[in-house]
Each structure stands twice: as structure tokens, then as C-alpha cells.
């Protein structure tokens, strides 16, 4: 199986069987549960996750070595978290031998590229034991999120309970119970421009990739891609970490994932092509192709 969804061995709709995780997670709690299982089983001895930063809803990557630390990082924060910046430090002053990392498709590309050409990453490639990718249409700088929440949604950043993108809307849930939905048309201009050349929606290079799209509320779609990912996933299933449903039996199913992936790729492909003609007789390079 290939194409816009990348290569994968298995695709299911799943959610964590742990109520505590589900109560704090964005959707099915896949990332938190998978890392928790890997930590407890010794498959990894630490995971690079997006925790709480100095400002509300600003993620700060950190290395979680306990389940409590992992739990503190659950939930999606819709702006940039430089996960890969910690990958070397994890093997240095943290002394980790087996690292887990979660990230967006571009971050998975960076991780794999670093493993292939470990320039400045001496002794790091072999330490990466579990790379979990999350579906990503585009990302926002922190300032954009502040503007969307405070100006468009009219809410204070630190009074927000949850943010979500789904059903064609950007949802902001306040702690007092108010819900604001912004049409995605409004959010487009706040997107990070660099995202518009990305041709990967479902983290094709991760061991396991996951996201809410395609599954019912409270569930996540999971692609198990690599042999390593498959090993860990099947162990987690055997240990009863997840409830799963065949993806064919859930609504909206893979059809929607494929539709959104195709949309992202064809839209961004246009940007890539436009950029090639940008400027006078010297366009910007297609990041997916090597220099000529």
C-alpha cells in the first residue's frame, strides 16, 4: 500500500484502554499510551514529548522519563514544538540509550534524515527506538495561536481548556464551558508559510503514525508502518493497552484521511511548483528533490 497515505502494515481505529489517559488526551490517547507502554516495558527509557511551556498553550519539548511526566504532556498544542532539538541532548546529559520521539511529519523526516546522515548527531541514530508521527495539515507559530484565541475567539489563552481542529473548523473550548468555532478560512493566513511545501500528511516515515481524522470522536486512526513499529504495537495490543476497531467499520474511515491527504499534497504541490518559478530566473528549490 502506498500513495498519499504512505506505506503501512496495518491501519486501525484505536483508543487507549486507560481511563486516566483518555480523560486528559486529545482523542484516543494513542501517543501517551504507546509511550507509557514502551517506558514500562523498557523498550525506551525516555521520550521526547511536547510539555507545558512558559506561556499558556506554548509547548516546550522535554524528555519524559516517568509516566507522570508523560501524562503532563498529553493533549495537542497547536503550535510549533522543536522536538528534534532535544534528540542529541537525550543521549548526552540525560544518558538515554533508547529514545522515543513524537512529532509532526516534517519532524519525522528530520529524524530519519538524521539517522541516515548523522552529521552533528554522533551515536544518536541507533538510540532512536520509537518514532511516533502525528497527522498534520499545517502548523502555527505561537503568535498566530494567540491571535486566533484572543482576538478571533475572544478568549484568554490561560482560560482555554482544549483546542481542536475537526469537522472543517478550529474549535476553542473555554474552561467556563464556552465553545467557539472558527472556520478554517480564518485560520489559513496564520499558518506557518513553511508548511505549504510539505507533501506529507500522515507522517509516512514514522514507526507508528496517528491522528483523529478518520475515526469517531474519542478514537484515533493508527497506521503501523515499520517492522519496529509493528513489533511494539502488537506487544501493546497483546498487553491490552488499546481497544481497536477495524478501520473499514468506522465512520468516516480511511476515505476522509485519503481525501485530506490528497488535498494537502495537491495544494502544496502547487506551492512547490510556484516557488520553482519564483523570482527572476532562479526559483526556490523543491525541498523534496536534491539540488541539481
Amino acid at each position, binding site marked *: 500500500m502506498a500513495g498519499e497515505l504512505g506505506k503501512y502494515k496495518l491501519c486501525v481505529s484505536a483508543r487507549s484502554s486507560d481511563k486516566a489517559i483518555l480523560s486528559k488526551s486529545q482523542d484516543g490517547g494513542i501517543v501517551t499510551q504507546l509511550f507509557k507502554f514502551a517506558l514500562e516495558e523498557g523498550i525506551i*527509557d*525516555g521520550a521526547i514529548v511536547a510539555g507545558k511551556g512558559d506561556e499558556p498553550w506554548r509547548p516546550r519539548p522535554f524528555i519524559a*522519563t516517568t509516566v507522570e511526566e508523560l501524562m503532563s504532556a498529553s493533549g495537542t498544542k497547536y503550535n510549533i514544538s522543536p522536538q528534534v532539538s532535544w534528540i542529541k*541532548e537525550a*543521549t*548526552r*546529559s*540525560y*544518558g*538515554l*540509550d533508547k529514545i522515543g520521539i513524537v512529532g509532526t511529519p516534517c519532524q519525522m523526516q528530520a529524524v530519519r534524515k538524521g539517522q541516515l546522515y548523522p552529521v552533528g548527531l*554522533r*551515536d544518536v541514530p541507533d538510540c532512536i527506538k520509537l518514532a511516533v508521527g502525528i497527522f498534520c495539515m499545517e502548523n502555527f507559530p505561537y503568535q498566530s495561536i494567540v491571535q486566533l484565541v484572543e482576538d478571533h475567539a475572544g478568549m484568554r489563552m490561560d482560560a482555554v481548556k482544549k483546542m481542536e481542529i475537526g469537522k472543517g473548523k478550529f474549535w476553542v473550548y473555554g474552561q467556563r464551558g464556552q465553545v467557539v468555532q472558527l472556520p478554517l478560512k480564518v485560520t489559513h493566513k496564520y499558518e506557518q508559510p513553511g508548511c505549504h511545501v510539505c507533501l506529507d500528511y500522515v507522517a509516512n516515515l514514522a514507526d507508528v503514525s496517528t491522528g483523529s481524522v478518520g475515526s469517531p470522536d474519542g478514537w484515533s486512526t493508527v497506521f503501523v508502518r515499520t517492522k519496529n513499529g509493528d513489533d511494539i504495537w502488537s506487544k501493546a495490543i497483546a498487553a491490552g493497552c488499546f481497544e481497536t476497531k477495524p478501520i473499514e467499520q468506522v465512520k468516516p474511515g480511511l476515505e476522509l484521511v485519503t481525501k485530506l491527504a490528497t488535498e494537502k499534497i495537491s495544494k502544496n504541490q502547487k506551492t512547490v511548483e510556484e516557488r520553482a518559478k519564483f523570482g527572476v530566473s532562479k526559483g526556490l528549490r523543491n525541498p523534496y528533490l536534491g539540488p541539481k
Partner: protein
Amino acid sequence: MSKIVEISPTTRHEGHSKLVLKVDDAGIVERGDWLSITPVRGVEKLAIGKTMDQVPKIASRVCGICPIAHTLAGVESMEASIRCEIPKDAKLLRIILQSANRLHSHALHNILTLPDMYLPGTDTKINPFTPQEPVRSVAKRIQRLREIGQTIGQIAGGEAIHPSNPRVGGMYKACTPQAKNKMYDLAKEGLTLAHEQMDFMIAILRNFQKRDWAEVAGKQIPIPKKLGYHNQGYMASHPLYGSSSLDSNPGWDPQRWTDVRPWDWYMGEGEVSLADPSYPVGGTSPVGTKVNPQMEACTGVPLYDGAPVEVGPRARLVKFKNFDEKGTIGQQVARQMEYTDSVYSILNALDEYNPNGKILADHIPQGDGSLGWAANEAPRGTDVHLAKVKDGRVLYYEMLVPTTWNFPTCSQALAGAPWQLAEIVVRGYDPCVSCATHMIVIDEDKKIVAQKLIQ
């Protein structure tokens, strides 16, 4: 009548150097000149005007074998100039880094020097894939020791080569308890291996000492009993770590240091009159080759109390532990004796290290331009960096690198040896030539009298 032999380049050490030897009819060296022909880098010039945080990082790039020593000496010379004391836990991390560097560097030297000694199967190189024992297990042990040293170094220092963690005022990152445990486990494993390797190496070296001849290019070359003897003094600042101008009792004195220009020290123009095409590797320079060590040497000649001195493992052991064995083998034995010391010092430092402790000084002064120096006991000897920092910028920077001190001393130690064994004497110093290449010459009145090659 004496003849001139030239071995260029010398092999199995870091950098690019050559030997010009005046030998008698029996092939015994009357006068030996060992000189660096690695081009001058000019790091001292590059440093001027840069910030005090940048310069130690630039300085460490002078070499890939002992960048840890250069980083530490560089950082500490800045701290000495601005008079900044670092917290205890930062110092402990630096001690771990320093010892880890010594562990892997000494192991590397074993690979370079073992083919000179008598060990079946190592005639040309130490090969971990050979089916022959004991070479195979020795090579694997050396590899593992190096791996342990480098891994501990990269945990404590951020990177095993060009460490990123040391900074002016302390360290950037503290090690977590988990990292501390990992280092401890590695050091425990390394301790057993270090004991084994030390015993093995000393046995090999003693065996060489008892032999009457060594085989070079198929010929039996007699080994003199006084191979590598010299009458120069020793210089060491500390048994393990180093010293700086901030110490109440500094281990080094800049007032006792002067320089001589190479053209006042080395042999003048000459012509090769003895050649041996079978000498490994590729033969010596052919008869008729012009040599001119005076002008070819790329180092100044530093003197301590007006004479060349030896630095390195033996100097440390002589100065601080009453070691008294002379010659090349004595020097090599001293190096092996440092194996276990370096692992014990890692373990002791880890015992004391507190992962939650402070690693950065509260206040980092920006400097008033006064001279500070720091001597670091690198694997190869005392590595002194001198600096003047004013308002956070470097006004003056100087590196006095171990092998620079050893060049003139080793040249004297060559006399009396058959010329075929000259390289064995050179390798005994574990030379690291490329970082030794500097050219600022300072006379008795502390005036710079030559900057010939870097102007």
C-alpha cells in the same frame, strides 16, 4: 663521517612531522631533529577580538584527538583572566570529561605503538578482525576502552570530540541521575578492562626491553639499553587535571617560560646522504634530497627555565609520584600506569557529583584585560593556554601545546639510538603534531620576537 637520513613523513602518530637525523658510520644517531611540518593554523590570531565564549570553541578545533584538553584549557584561561570561580559540580563534570579523554586517548596510543613491540600478528597493524590471538582480544579490548572513554566524555561534555558542554563560568548542562548511573556503569566496566590492558601493555613493554634486537624492514636492529634517554627536566602542573593562575599554589609559572626561534635551534641546510628504500613505509628520502630543518620547522621551541622539558605521563608521574624510569620504555610504562588512575578519578568524581547541584557561576565578570593562564594535563602533557579578556572580548591568546614542549626534548632523546629506531622514540611521546604548530616566539623580556609565519 656523519651522514644525514631523512624520514618524512613519520607515521603512526597524529599530524605531519619528519625526522632529520645525523648518523655515524654504524647508523647511530649523533644529532636528531624532529620537527613539525604541519602548516601553522593561526588560531591565536583568529581569537583576537572574538568573545570569550567563542574562543575556546575555536581553539578546540585545532585538533581532533585532544579537543577536550584544548576546550578545558581555553575555557579555564578565560576564567583565569576574568577571575571567575566555577561551582563544584561543574568542576566535577570537567574532571570526568578530562579523565574520560585520557582513557580513550591512551587506548588509541596503544594501537599506534603496539606494532613496534613484539606481539605475534601485530607486525603491521592491530586488527580486531584477525583470527589470531591475543591480537584479536587485545584489539577488542582497546576498542571497548575507547568506546567507554568517549561515551562517558559525551555524556559529561556533550560531545566526545569538540565537547560542547564546558563554558566560561561552568557548564551548560548538568547530567541527570540516570546519566550519572550510566557513566558509573561504564566506568566500572572500564576499570576491569583498564587493569587488564595496563598489565598486558607493561608485559609487552618489558619484553621489548629485554630483547637484543628489533626487526625493522627485515633487518635486525640492535636495541640500545638507553633507548630514548635524555637529560632534560620534566614539567607537569597536576597529577590529573591541571592548574590555573587562580590557584593559590599554581602548578605552572609563566615567568619561567621563554621561546627560541626554530632557526636558532634546529640544524641548517644539508643534503640526504644515506637512504634505505626498504624502510617502512615507502623508504626514507632518496640521497640528494635537500633538507633545511631551520626553515621547515613549523613550531617555536618553548623552554622552561631556559631548557627544553618533557611533558606527558612520565612527567606527571616523576613530579607527583616519584616515578624514575628513563627512556622510551619508561615513558610508555608511565602512560599505561595512568589507565587505572583515570578510571578511578571518574568513579571518585561521580561519587561526589550532585545532579541537582549548581553548574554555572552566579556572576561572570567580563574581564579587565589582565593575563590569566590555565594548564590542562592533556593525555600528552601540559597544555597551557594564556589569555587576556577585556569587556568579554579576547585581547590576547596563546596556546602552549604538549607536543610543542616535547619536540626539542625528543630531539635530544634520539641521540644514541640506531636511526631505524628513531620513530619508536618519537612514538613514545604520543605526539600530536598538528595542534603543536604555533609560531609566536617570546624572549627573556617577554617581548614577541617572531611571528614570522602568521603575519
